[in-house]
């Protein structure tokens, strides 16, 4: 197991390096590059800009710039925001919890509902339920998340008035209940696409597991069908589920970005868009790198958990 984990850890480091290279390329593609903030000030002459560029070390070879930039990232110096001069790191950190809350609740909803639908679809294959679930999943995967958000706001906020149309809490009422009230629609909207993904996965995993020999043995032993499914089949689907959860992270972040926009949720996604609109590139780059970091770390954790839980790896 230790060998496996070490190998995995090294792979993550390599991935981080590659990700940082991609990020650095994107950073330099942005018009004006690191001196973009000065390009906005019409009082600067070309000479002044060149002097600042030299000062910031922008006329040195690209790979030297990359190494310096990467070294600064590792030390926690992610630059300063153009908008208010705060440290990018602290700006990002302030917005992360809101997004994690949204992603977490959406994941819980998606996994619980998705797996139940998937298992039922597998055990009652080709039934009406299975057919509706399969087609429904495919349709849900084809509709943009923000459309669900807009329709949801129209139906539940404007027409029925049951749920608030945005924000994390109502000003003046900071109670937990109020927070939860505001959390419902965004997390359900974000979860919809992932319910479809989990149900399709669970259906395939259950069908796979049910074809295995040990299921025949359990049935021959007289174990009730329900117990066979619940205990043996689902247990074996658990491992790939953990891996899938890790793989889902980037798409959860993408969905969160859009959901936060529609529901004015004060998280990373909204910060990303606001910074883009304000040309606050340090924050944009910081968020881009952070999202990749989150994904890599998340996948690494998922693999570590799998290594600890899967006896085939643990005892190897």
């Amino acid at each position: 197991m230790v060998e496996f984990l070490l190998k995995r850890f090294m792979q993550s480091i390599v991935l981080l390096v590659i990700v940082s290279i991609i990020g650095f390329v994107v950073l330099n593609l942005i018009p004006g590059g690191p001196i973009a903030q000065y390009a906005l000030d019409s009082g600067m002459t070309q000479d002044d800009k060149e002097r600042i560029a030299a000062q910031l070390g922008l006329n040195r070879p690209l790979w030297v710039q990359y190494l310096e930039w990467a070294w600064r990232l590792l030390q926690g110096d992610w630059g300063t925001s153009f908008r208010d001069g705060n440290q990018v790191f602290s700006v990002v950190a302030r917005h992360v919890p809101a997004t994690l809350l949204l992603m977490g609740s959406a994941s819980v909803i998606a996994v619980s509902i998705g797996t139940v639908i998937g298992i039922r679809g597998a055990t009652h294959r080709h039934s009406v339920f299975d057919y509706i679930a399969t087609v429904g999943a495919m349709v849900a995967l084809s509709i943009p998340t923000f459309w669900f958000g807009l329709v949801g706001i129209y139906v539940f906020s404007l027409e029925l008035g049951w749920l608030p149309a945005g924000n994390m809490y109502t000003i003046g009422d900071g109670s937990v209940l109020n927070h939860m009230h505001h959390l419902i629609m965004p997390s359900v909207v974000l979860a919809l696409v992932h319910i479809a993904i989990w149900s399709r996965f669970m259906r395939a995993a259950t069908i796979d597991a049910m074809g295995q020999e040990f299921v025949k043995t359990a049935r021959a032993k007289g174990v009730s069908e329900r117990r066979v499914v619940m205990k043996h089949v689902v247990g074996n689907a658990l491992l790939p589920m953990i891996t899938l959860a890790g793989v889902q992270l980037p798409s959860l972040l993408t969905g969160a970005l859009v959901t936060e926009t529609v529901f004015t949720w004060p998280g990373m996604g909204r910060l990303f868009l606001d910074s883009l609109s304000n040309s606050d590139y340090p924050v944009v780059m910081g968020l881009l790198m952070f999202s990749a970091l989150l994904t890599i770390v998340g996948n690494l954790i998922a693999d570590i958990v799998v290594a600890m839980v899967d006896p085939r790896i643990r005892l190897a």
Partner: protein
Amino acid sequence: MTTLTAAGAPQSAWWRNRVVRRFLGHRLAVVGLVMITLLSLACALGPHLLPYDSLQIDLHARFASPLTGDHYLGTDPLGRDLATRLLMAGRISLLVGFFSMLLATLAGTLVGVVAGYMGGWVNSVLMRTVDGFLSFPTLFLLLALAVALKPSPTMITVIIALTSWMTVARIVATEVASLKEREFVLAGRMLGLSRAHIMFREILPNVMGPIIVAATLTVARAILLEAYISFLGFGIQPPLPSWGNMLNGAQQYLDRSPWLAIIPGLAIAMAVTSFNFIGDGLRDALDVRSELK
């Protein structure tokens, strides 16, 4: 050299081909094919048949409801006919989706074939790069690139392709790696065929099945991605209409004109669902080992 796909004997009619028959037996896939054909025809010919121009502003007829009066689907905040706008937008959204698929599939296939056949460190470097790109949430990367480069339809096509080639590359690499050990490849090497010849004239034709499936699903994803970035305001810029940017201004008018948001969304859903159904049908039709429904 013979290919290993079920291409059927050249003499019999194409509709007797096993793959075609299996595809047509897939109800959803056929529905998808019909839907996307109708949609494409509507977008190509519709604007010529409808009486209104998509850019014609008529401030007397703003926010008209669908199915009332002259405008079939109503009008937008500037009084432009929604039906015509929808179909014109469809042209752009579908074309962007299609061409980014072409680019992404080309790039992904190239990378995949080289990585899968060469193996060793070439494979490692290429596949790690693929993983690197996949570590970024697609929309984050897309938006950052959209801001960095001009948001013209061509640029949008390029950057969507840049964030879609990875899946194709992975699929192709795995397939090629497994085909590498087959006898016909060995025979080719013994005959002294160049590596390029083996990769692209022998192995590639046998990977066409998975590539086509991946390509179909890539179109679906590309249309969706264009909708996302245009909705957020960083994609296709007005006055050029796209399904995504039609939804962009719709949120503020939800209380008085919800159809402004609902209708383009349905169009997107229809197009993307069609391609997903077709892709699923193709996957089952081309897969020799799948269970028969």
